């Protein structure tokens, strides 16, 4: 398959950046989007040009490293997939594909398609953890957890922190990410001691980083590669209100 690629090129954070157009030929329909970019980069290196910088690690949809806007959609047009899961057969032969980095104030572009997502790390550092006494391993099942809670906590914990929720949101809101992290702890017994403190600190850090306000249009849920539900956002709101009011 052949494609025309319009890719955002930006040397560094201070550069204004611009789109550049490239042609790639003879791409296998079974190649992943990142493999197609690898082909392009090989081509650029052969021509002694700067390859396109993009984040990637596991290439099997579990690390959350890769992420880009493909034709106006976070991680491409498919549902529940990271950029590395996108296959070239989902495009038409000869199609022009626009590739952009996540765009949000708290996610400054470092280079080309790579953005700085340490804002998420700082939110986690503000409260996305539990404090436990170190010591011997506790006996199995010594802390009972309701099956429903365990399942919902696991659903929330599936968040890989890729940032697609922010990228897909018209307000660049990080509510789905924060909601997933808060939910995961609020549903389990281990998260109870710091429950109120955690939600307030994480929301405060989220606001400090400059993410927007949630307007409940649920684009985040639609684009989340892990299908994290917006019911977690309702839980985050509930947790925050209860923590503030009680």
């Amino acid at each position, binding site marked *: 398959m052949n494609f025309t690629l319009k890719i955002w090129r930006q040397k560094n954070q201070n550069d204004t950046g611009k789109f550049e157009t490239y042609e790639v030929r003879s791409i296998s329909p079974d190649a992943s989007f990142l493999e197609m970019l690898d082909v392009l980069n090989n081509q650029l290196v052969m021509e002694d040009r700067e390859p396109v910088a993009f984040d990637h690690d596991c290439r099997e949809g579990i690390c959350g490293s890769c992420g880009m806007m493909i034709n106006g959609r976070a991680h491409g047009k498919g549902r529940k997939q990271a950029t590395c899961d996108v296959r070239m057969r989902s495009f038409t032969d000869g199609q022009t594909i626009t590739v952009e980095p996540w765009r949000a104030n708290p996610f400054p572009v470092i280079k080309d398609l790579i953005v700085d997502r340490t804002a998420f790390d700082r939110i986690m550092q503000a409260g996305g953890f539990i404090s436990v006494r170190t010591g011997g391993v506790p006996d199995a099942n010594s802390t009972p957890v309701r099956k429903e809670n365990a399942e919902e906590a696991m659903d929330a914990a599936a968040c890989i922190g890729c940032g697609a929720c922010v990228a*897909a949101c*018209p307000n660049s809101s990080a509510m789905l990410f924060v909601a997933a992290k808060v939910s995961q702890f609020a549903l389990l017994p281990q998260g109870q001691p710091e429950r109120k403190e955690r939600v307030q600190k994480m929301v405060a850090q989220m606001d400090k980083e400059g993410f927007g*306000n949630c307007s409940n249009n649920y684009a985040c849920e639609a684009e989340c590669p892990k299908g994290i539900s917006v019911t977690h956002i309702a839980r985050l709101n509930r947790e925050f*209100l209860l923590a503030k009011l009680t």
Partner: protein
Amino acid sequence: MNNIFAFYYSSIGKKVLMSLTGLFLIIFLTEHLVGNLLLFANDQGKMYEAYGDFLVSNPVIRFIEIFLFLGVLGHAILGVILWFKNRMTRPVKYKSFRLKDNATLASRTTIITGSVIGIFLYIHLKTFFIPSRFSAEKVSTYELVVKAFSNPWYDAFYLVALFLLGYHLRHGFQSAFQTLGLRNKTYTSFLDLLACIVWCLIPLGFAAIPIYFFFFHQAASTVIMGVH
């Protein structure tokens, strides 16, 4: 006190204020609609006028009225502030951004539908509320209604504004419950049903009034024919 300010300055705090004011306005709309149904009583507005007099003379209603004005202003101003604030979070825009694949039209257009409702409210208050409340001599609200709705342009604007109100409520009602943390798997289907009733029935109920007075009301027809 510090806690209250901290709450307001948080992103969730502002959204909670939006939802509480929004729900308060929905309650008002319901009451307003139920009261206005007296216009259909076919008694030349006697019951409707009596209901209006009761509202004006009742100190409790006058007290609640202050909160109603604050609620409308708060909801509108905060809505605009949040909209501007949210626009500033993405200084470099996407070349291609297909939000419409992921979000409903109603959720993407609350600022537009809200603005039209704001203009509508200004005209509505100018036509009915200000003359009936602040005129030196007693004004018949029923006559105001009959006169205003005999104008087809006025009716058309009303119907457009009410359609947009429906759209605004379609997103706003469920959104308010989401922000208050009350949407979960147990309540979602019930809330969706309640939302349908709110965003469909309230605007339809209000829309019935101009339609009735333009097409079916006798006094209105005489005004149109120039007899009145």
